[in-house]
């Protein structure tokens, strides 16, 4: 299902708070269809919080989020349902339902949300599991899988409904380089073959190089850089430099990175 919007995701001046703590402070972001947007940033900078707000798991304290043209915070149930039916989310730990087999997990959204006959659903599940290389694991339960397999099964579930937007929270964290590379390739083909927008939170620079069309970099709840990977790398912000720092920068700049980190790094 290709989307017809100019932007699949529009985030405007988003403010997010947990109690008194402001986690996101005026974040702006727009993601087009068929775009892989990578969100970068140090631990605790608000990446996962941003994801949760876009997908409607948390209500913004200020600003606006539009997902496929709908503001989830104010939409009524049927609209919300319609949007969520076109969105997939790959959680960091997989978040597969432990009580169900892998097959049932992937089939769940199809069974609950569509009127498809059982054999069609089974065939679709088999296709999706083949896509992530888990054809042999249909009848296993999540606890019987390794971390990497869980992640791939969760990806199969996230794409069960052929979403227009796929979110992934650290998809390749904890995977071996070969599996991680295969996963990256899969993500790219989802973009090119299905026209999905992908929003990926990751720390793996190698993976960013491969998949990112555009990069948004967060620090302390603010967007400090946005653009193609090259543009972001060229941003003079010290945190950006620190992040990509090891790539043969001049000695002068290296020192400024350390200074910036020394006076500011303690309060991330």
């Amino acid at each position, binding site marked *: 299902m290709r989307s017809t919007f100019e932007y699949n995701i529009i985030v405007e001046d988003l403010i997010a708070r947990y109690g008194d703590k402001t986690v996101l402070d005026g974040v702006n972001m727009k993601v087009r269809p068929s775009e892989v947007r990578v969100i970068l940033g140090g631990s605790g900078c608000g990446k996962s919080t941003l994801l949760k707000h876009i997908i*409607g798991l948390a209500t913004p304290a200020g600003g606006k989020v539009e997902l496929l043209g709908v503001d989830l915070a104010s939409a009524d149930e049927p609209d919300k349902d319609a949007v*969520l039916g076109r969105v997939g*989310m790959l959680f*960091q730990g997989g978040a*597969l339902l432990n009580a169900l087999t892998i097959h049932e997990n992937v089939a769940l959204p199809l069974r*609950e949300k569509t009127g498809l006959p059982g054999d069609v659903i089974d065939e679709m599940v088999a296709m999706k599991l083949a896509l992530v290389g888990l054809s042999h694991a249909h009848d296993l339960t999540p606890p019987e899988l390794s971390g990497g397999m869980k992640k791939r099964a969760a990806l199969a579930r996230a794409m069960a409904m052929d979403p227009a937007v796929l979110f992934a929270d650290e998809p390749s964290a904890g995977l071996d380089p070969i599996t991680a590379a295969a996963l990256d390739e899969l993500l790219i083909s989802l973009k090119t073959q299905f026209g999905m927008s992908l929003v990926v939170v990751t720390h793996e620079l190698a993976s960013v190089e491969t998949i990112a069309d555009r990069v948004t970099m967060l620090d302390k709840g603010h967007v400090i850089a946005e653009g193609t990977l090259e543009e972001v790398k060229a941003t003079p912000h010290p945190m950006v430099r620190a992040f990509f720092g090891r790539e043969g920068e001049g000695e002068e700049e290296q020192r400024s990175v350390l200074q910036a980190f020394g006076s500011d790094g303690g309060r991330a």
Partner: protein
Amino acid sequence: MVALEGDLVVDAVPAISKRLAAIAGPGERVEVDLSAVTDIDSAGVALLSLFLKRMDASGREVALVRVPDSVKVTLELFPFVGARVAPDVERRAVFDRVGAWAEGIADLVLHFLVVAADTSWFVVTGVFKRRGVRWHVMFYEMAQMGSKALGVVSLIAFLVGATMALQSAAQLRQFGADIFVVDLIGISMTRELGPLMAAIVVAGRSGSAVAAEIGTMMISEEIDALKTMGLHPTRFLVVPKILAITITQPLITAFADAAGILGGFLVATFYLDVGAESFIQRLQESLFLKDVVTGLIKSVIFAWLIVSVGAICGFRTRGGADAVGRSTTTSVVAGIFAVIVADALASLVFYFGD
């Protein structure tokens, strides 16, 4: 007591250093008040570190108090200094505390009402909708919450019935009123003890299981995953359990009633010489259908309370595996408490309703 203020950074350190140098030698406890400190860097931390070491050397007690969170984060990077940060003593007025407590209770009650309303809504709408209720899950839950609890509930009820007959016999015999043991067992079992004991056992078995299941799903983001798939967690998880326990709890209770009366019957016939025939005859005379029905109605109310309390405890789980343990414990305690309060209220209603 010494209060520092402003930026505790490279430029400011020499001046502050002089102020701290004035505090020397043994003496009473020193409290360094950092509440007005706006920024701190390594130099500032080093200054504090030196001061702490100097005080330690002269045997003087010292603590860093009222440390702002922004400064605390930096101090905690350096364990020697971080460990000396005194925990914030919250001096809150009585009304503040009562207010916070009331707010917590109000939040809990609201949460309970939301879950209860959601559950009722999804039960009513779901039963008439295709794919509205996950029937196969309901049957699974019926086995979990019903048949598997049957043995232990019946055993407990049997023993309580027998014990009650034995204990009361000694009293009743003094008046030559042995036969009234039948009334005692029959009425108390069906109206009170059967439903109550069944509910307490089920709260321990199933209430905790509900809390543990939902709590684990909370911390492993499974609940979030359900939401992003557009599946309402209450409809998906709570509704099948509510439907299942609505069917099983009266059945379990009926078994408990019967087992309790059987216990009493055995004691009465073999120990009290009441005689099997007269026991059964007396039971038919003294026990009304209303007693039994009252007990069964109560058992359904208890069942709903047990599942919804378990579900609330599960949904309020935040944090890690230890939080699941806490939720489980809370669900059992709160579940049994809710059942007993409801029982007291029900007794009032049925008593004055007569």
